[in-house]
């Protein structure tokens, strides 16, 4: 529920979802259906006004904002529609950022390795503004996986990309997901993307309904 001051707006209600380790789940919905709100709740970025939420088996209601942050640290990765790269950091530094919260000896080597895996081994020192949209999203993907995250949330990862580039990004995302054995929760209105997931759900009128994969329109 969102309290807009004058009236209350119920965005999500009567909603049950369980995601298992190693699974890939797509949540489809129209623009404004509350997909991002749901993602924020699932990742513990936001708190629901009611209901029960668990992440890695731990109840999020019992945790304060800092507790939820600590739960995410090193275990949850994010890929955003608008990439969310820091403009003053190079590609390498952007990937290093989550590692620096829980520093490890080989942090930089791992960041380089992940940038090579997304095909940007030659662009380590480039700033975001020197990279194309697709390249920026690849940096963001490397950043999501570099901590060895168990769970990756992706919010419209192809939303800002042209179809060709978007297809390549999807390819990359799922390849890395497979290789790393990560759980993937995708929020999108891109059906091609949803079809790549093991499970798809539709979010409409604040409710989630399972969607058979063959129901997803081509």
């Amino acid at each position, binding site marked *: 529920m969102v309290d807009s001051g004058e009236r209350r707006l119920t965005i999500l209600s009567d909603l049950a979802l369980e995601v298992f380790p190693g699974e890939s789940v797509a949540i489809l919905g129209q623009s404004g259906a509350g997909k*991002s709100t749901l*993602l*924020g709740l699932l*990742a513990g*970025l*936001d708190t629901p006004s009611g209901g029960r939420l668990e992440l890695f088996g731990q109840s999020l209601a019992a945790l304060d*904002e*800092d507790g939820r*942050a*600590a*739960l*995410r*640290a*090193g*275990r*949850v990765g*994010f890929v*955003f529609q*608008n990439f*969310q790269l*820091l403009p*003053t*950091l*190079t590609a390498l*530094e952007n990937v290093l*950022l*989550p590692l*620096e*919260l*829980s*520093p490890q000896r080989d942090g930089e080597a791992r960041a380089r390795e992940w940038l090579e895996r997304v095909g940007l081994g030659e662009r380590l020192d480039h700033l975001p503004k020197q990279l194309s949209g697709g390249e920026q999203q690849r940096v963001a993907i490397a950043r999501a996986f570099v*901590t060895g995250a168990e769970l990756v949330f992706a*919010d419209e990862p192809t939303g*800002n990309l042209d179809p060709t580039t978007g297809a390549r990004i999807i390819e990359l995302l799922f390849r890395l997901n497979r290789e790393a054995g990560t759980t993937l929760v995708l929020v999108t209105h891109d059906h091609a993307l949803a079809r790549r997931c093991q499970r798809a759900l539709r979010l409409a009128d604040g409710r989630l309904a399972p969607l058979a994969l063959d129901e997803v329109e081509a």
Partner: protein
Amino acid sequence: MTRAAALPHQGAIQALRFSARGLWRDLRAADVRALFVALMLAVAASTMIGFFLDRLDRGLTRQAGQLLGGDLVLEQGQPFSPELRRTLEGAGLTLSDQVDLVSMASLGDAFQVTSLKVVDDVYPHYGQVLVDRGAGSEAQARGPAPGEAWLAPRLALLLEAELGDRVRIGEVELTVSGLVEREPDQSAGFGNFNPRLMMHLDDLAATGLVQPGSRVEYELLAAGPPDALNGLDSLLEALRRDGVEVRDVRRDRPGLGNALDRAERYLSLAGLAAVLLAGVAVAMATRRYVDRHLDTAALLRCFGATQRQLTRLFALQLLWLALVAAALGALLGLAGQALLLGLLSAFLPLTLPAPGPLPLLLGVLTAVAVLVGFAGPTLLRLKRVSALKVLRRELDPLPPSAWLVVIVASLVFGALLWLYSGDIGLASGLLLGGWVMLGLLWGLGRGLLALVLWLVGRLPAGQGGWGQALRLGGRQLARRRDASLGQMLAFAVTFFAMAMIALVRGDLLTTWQAQLPEAMPNYFAINIQPAERESFSEVLEARADDRTSLYPMVRGRLTAIDGTPAREAVPAEARGDNALRRELNLTWQETLPEGNRLVAGRWFSAEPVRGEPVPISLEDGFAERLGLGLGDTLTFTIGGREVSGRVASLRNLDWDSFRPNFFVIFPPGTLDRFGHSYITAFYLDPGEGETLRGLVRDFPGVSLLNIDAILAQVRELVAQVTRAVELVLALVLLAGVSVLYAALTASRPVRAHEGGLLRVFGAGTRTLSRVQGAEFAILGLASGLMGVLLAELATAGLYALWFDLPPRPHPLLWLSLPLGGALLIGAIGHFLSRGLRREAPMASLGLLGET
């Protein structure tokens, strides 16, 4: 799970490394560079001035020790006791004995009254004697050896003595082995007109001059480490009560003279102005820094950073920045103070002690304080950022209230003021005044913005041209009312600080120059006998510029105050005062002498009435020292007879005036019956050598003292202090420009956004450039107006309270500051937004993160 658990315990070193790395990357951003430059300038200015004043202060203390002859000088009419010697030595002081007496010296059939200075092997504690021993002047860190005498050149002339001659003092003969050109501990004064003869203590007993009842002054000179005197205060107090004259380097420092004293105040003020400016720059740059880091903070929240980690990260990052800026600033400060000293070199013949660590510590403290005070409240916003902002951009935490920022910053600045001035009254007064002025400015700023909006609404509507630019620019300014007000305040404070430092400089220089006119008296004539008075005056009136009249002078001793012996009547700490131990120069005058100012009582109007107490006038400092006030009756002993007077007025006089000055002035008709001579000061052109020779020939008894050298030194001092003041002014102006730069950098994204929108709506580069130019110019004009108002109010207050100068309005400033402000802001703004105008609208809109 292990990594998550490790987070709260993340090692301190790793946190340090992470934050340092973050800062390193951040240096690419303009706001961080602006922050860095501002902090560095604050530290550079405060350490430069701190180092300089600290060294000057310690150097002057040392020079004072040299002038006194030691850190502590005791003087009395009998030898000092062994117990006292042991106590002083026990405190870590080295002792030196000196005996002063007046006696006759003779060579052949020439006799001359001389003032003997009898010194031991330790003499002098500080400095060197400049003596000619036959091979020109040489500096010697000793006095004459036993059996030898060193003569003042004047004595040698009067006795017609040459090196190697034997001069008789009492019952011994000493060999003249040197001519003393300068004694390190010579304090110039007109009290002692007898020429000097310096001899060794070992020869004193043999002279037979020290007999019961003979007038001999014994001096015990002590020197030691700076804190050696600190434990002796009660002892010194007791000695003073016993009538011992105590000269203490901590108290009896020679005055710097008004010029350097005011320059010191100016430097402190300028240092504070630079710190204030840097603080404003820091506050402006921090806003942009925080805006820019909201995304970083949100992302880090997403990646699992706790609030504590975020706080620590940004605090550490800025601490690094402050430390590096402080280190660089301190280096700049060190270089700057060396430059200041270089500028003042000829005035400061003393070698100053090396820079101490205190100003450095103060510099770092200043940097951290400025950062915490001016950036702290704004930075807290980063901590409050929500992780959800990565999904919903509009979720920015609210900026802190402008008033909170102002209050915290001004409290910290007030604390710095207190720290630097050591005067809590001054600090809190300035702080309160500052708040009142800010409140006034806030109202004034709102009024000005409303006026701008009203004015641009009345501009003739037209397509293109400056009219349109002014209208658009003015509207943009007025629309962003709060941001514009903030900028106007920041610029106004900046212009105010710059203008004030410049104004005070100008007024100081004018005052100094007025004090030193071209034809200052450069000769003193003393010992003019009453019979010579008329003819001496005639010569002066014809050939020289006689600026002061001839003052009669009678020598008398102050023996009683209100009927009580003087030594008992004065406060305990004044019992050893010179004025009670020596004869004073008394004069009589009908009118208040030039350069004197009555501060209490009334000037005597006519000759005293018989039977009534004689009214006298005292110099206020003299009266204060001896605890005297209006109505006190002073009794003087002159040549065995007594004369009394009642204090009728107190005068303040300028000791820098190079004119004869007197502690005590009688009305005419009281002192005339005593033996007296006349003293005067006059200006003689260097080309008037013949007049000078005539004076020497026709008035052989008159002593002529040439003070051209001293005057030249004072002029050089003023020239040098002027240069030092100008260097500091340049630094303050630089700090001011750094504020403008930081502020305009901070507002760049908003302007870029507006420019981008105008572009989208079809504005060309030319229009855009004009609109932005108009906006900056209006901003500069309004801030300049507010700045000039502040500067006038503040300088008037400062002159009255701190610089002892009469307040004066500066009408030209009312024109130059607003116009200059418009030009300066316009130029910097134009320069900074040059790149923006070339950007495609997509890019400039993107600056705000709109994709």
